[in-house]
């Protein structure tokens, strides 16, 4: 970062105050009829540049000519953590990143941001990383978009990775989009398939659009890094290898102060993370009313699973959005997925089609859910579900 984000030429400034009015952050004031900058308040947004009729305000010259793509090397994975616990999606991305790095005959690195997180590097190396870049500072103890973007952008600018992947979580989707804009590069959201051209290093990013009715393959031909997010549970983890060797690099950075502070956190301890469930019993519109979810809840309990729901259930207020499976809810990949009264709108199927075994019960023989089901029962859920509960209760 340069010392002064903007330069005011006192020869050209006529003291008109337009820049003071234009600044959204109160970073400019008048002194002796000249505009003066408070650098600590300035965010380099350039609003004052546009406002000055006398061209008295300029930005310091930016270095760099045209982008040389060959300067950019290696596949990176942003390893999201929450209070020191690495999110599962990071390991899923490392497994995929390993494949991409091997296809490209290059290096796989993980980047971890946080406070007291250096110890996590070992598990990232075991999961496939050749290098781990660690930014371990108190200011990163809690997630804040601008600080996270600052840290990632500084490390990216220093090492120039060819590809950077992040999980499409609440954190990843937000700050990664900010970081991509800051790097003036492309970002592709929610990829479901990634492959790399070993020769050119071009990343082929495939993702659903229009509610999952259409798949698109997207490339970022002339900008680097090529950035993409992937939803949790779309890729599978690889078994960790504790004997893998890798290098841990601690990056000491000067970071901005956070824009917001967390005044309270409400973690719902009863809330189930359906994305982590092994068995899901899910209900849809066919349940007819919210009370009937209890039957599925009981079934889920008997199977040691959790309750899932279609968007129709959540929109009807029958259960909280935490249970929602599908494109606007969570993507899940349980061992067993039981669907009762879910017709299988494409946006629901996108969120559960990679489950190992799918069992569906629906009255409509033409319901799309049967297209993905390993076992499809054309039947009345109000008959099947109680019988199944009885069978499971008495069966052992």
């Amino acid at each position, binding site marked *: 970062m340069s010392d002064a984000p903007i330069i005011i030429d006192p020869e050209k400034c006529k003291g008109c105050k337009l820049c003071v009015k234009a600044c*959204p*952050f109160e970073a400019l004031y008048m002194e002796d009829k000249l505009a003066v900058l408070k650098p600590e308040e300035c*965010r380099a*947004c350039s609003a004052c540049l*546009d406002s000055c009729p006398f061209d008295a305000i300029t930005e310091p010259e930016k270095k760099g000519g045209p982008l040389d793509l060959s300067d950019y090397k290696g596949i990176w994975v942003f390893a999201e953590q929450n209070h020191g616990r690495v999110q599962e999606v990071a390991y899923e991305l490392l497994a995929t990143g390993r494949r991409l790095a091997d296809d490209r005959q290059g290096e796989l690195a993980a980047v971890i941001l946080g406070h007291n997180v250096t110890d996590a590097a070992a598990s990232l190396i075991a999961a496939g990383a050749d290098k781990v870049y660690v930014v371990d500072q108190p200011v990163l103890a809690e997630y804040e*978009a601008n600080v996270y973007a600052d840290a990632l952008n500084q490390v990216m600018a220093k090492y120039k990775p060819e590809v950077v992947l992040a999980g499409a*979580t609440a*954190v990843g*989707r*937000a*700050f990664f*989009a*900010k970081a*991509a*804009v800051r790097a003036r590069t*492309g*970002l592709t*959201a*929610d990829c479901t398939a990634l492959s790399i051209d070993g020769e050119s290093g071009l990343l082929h990013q495939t993702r*659903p*659009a*229009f*509610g999952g*009715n*259409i*798949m*698109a393959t997207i*490339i*970022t031909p002339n900008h680097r890094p090529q950035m993409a997010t992937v939803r949790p549970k779309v890729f599978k983890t690889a078994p960790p290898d504790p004997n893998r060797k890798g290098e841990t690099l601690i990056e000491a950075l000067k970071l901005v102060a956070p*824009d*917001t*502070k967390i*005044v309270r*956190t*409400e*973690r719902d301890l009863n*809330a189930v*993370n359906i994305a982590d469930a092994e068995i899901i019993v899910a209900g849809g519109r066919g349940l007819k009313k919210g009370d009937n979810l209890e039957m599925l809840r009981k079934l889920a309990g008997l*199977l040691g699973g959790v309750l899932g729901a279609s968007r129709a259930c959540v929109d009807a207020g029958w259960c909280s959005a935490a249970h929602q499976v599908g*494109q*606007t809810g969570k993507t899940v990949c349980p*061992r*067993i997925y039981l669907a009762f009264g879910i017709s299988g709108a*494409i946006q629901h199927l996108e969120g559960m*089609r990679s489950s*190992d*075994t799918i069992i569906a*019960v629906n*009255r409509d023989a033409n319901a799309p859910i049967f297209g*993905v089901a*390993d*076992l*499809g*029962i*054309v*039947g*009345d859920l109000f*008959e*099947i579900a109680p019988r199944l509960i009885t*069978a499971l209760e008495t069966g052992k």
Partner: protein
Amino acid sequence: MHIIVCVKQVPDTANVRINPETNTLIREGVESIMNPFDEYALEEALKLKDEHGARVTVITMGPPQAGVILREAMARGADDAVLLTDRAIAGADTLATSYILSLAIRKLNTKPDLVLFGKQAIDGDTAQVGPGVSEFLKYPLVTYVKSLTVKDGVFTAETMMDEGVDVLEGKLPVVMTVVKEASTPRFASLGGWINAKETEIPAWGAKEIEADIAQCGLDGSPTKVVKIFAPPVKTGGKKMDGLQTPGDAVNEIVRLLKEKGGR
């Protein structure tokens, strides 16, 4: 207080299909609507207007007919609107879109206190434009907001994270993205429709907002779509008639559950 709400006209995605012969979108017969998530963002702005008094401006970028959703937003209570429409800015990805929207916001020259977005648009589902605009404007970014209060230039927002809710505090101005848990959008009012009808909506192109053409539209978009295709169709596995023989169907479910380790 000045609040800007960025809205998008989208096809009702439940009905979008692909022509398997040509691999192009079938647009005929697909209704265009205001992105549902943007309705929640608009409602947050209108709630703040009710409580504190505020000017609410809606902005959209799209073809000329996208002006319909601006009228709709004004009928619900927004004060004015800007339509960004120009061939030069069409075909933009999220970076180029964020650039154009931020220039338009700058051009209004009002130093808005809040710039609100829906959490994502249902056609692209990227959730990237709100964060992108926050970066161009250098405004703080708060995503997945489910409740919002503003007092003395400071906001308090509840945000939905993956494992629960965080309550955040910060100084205005700010860019936020809003989730549907925030509220139920209001209906349009008669007075609103009159305002919507009588207020002129300026249409701005690249020239009006002094955009650098190299950063606009397809040319200004780092990402390129190289292929679109229909998702693979699965044929499904075993199918049973549970209407005639529910007992057999249940037995088969139990057998499969045992086989797959579902106890």
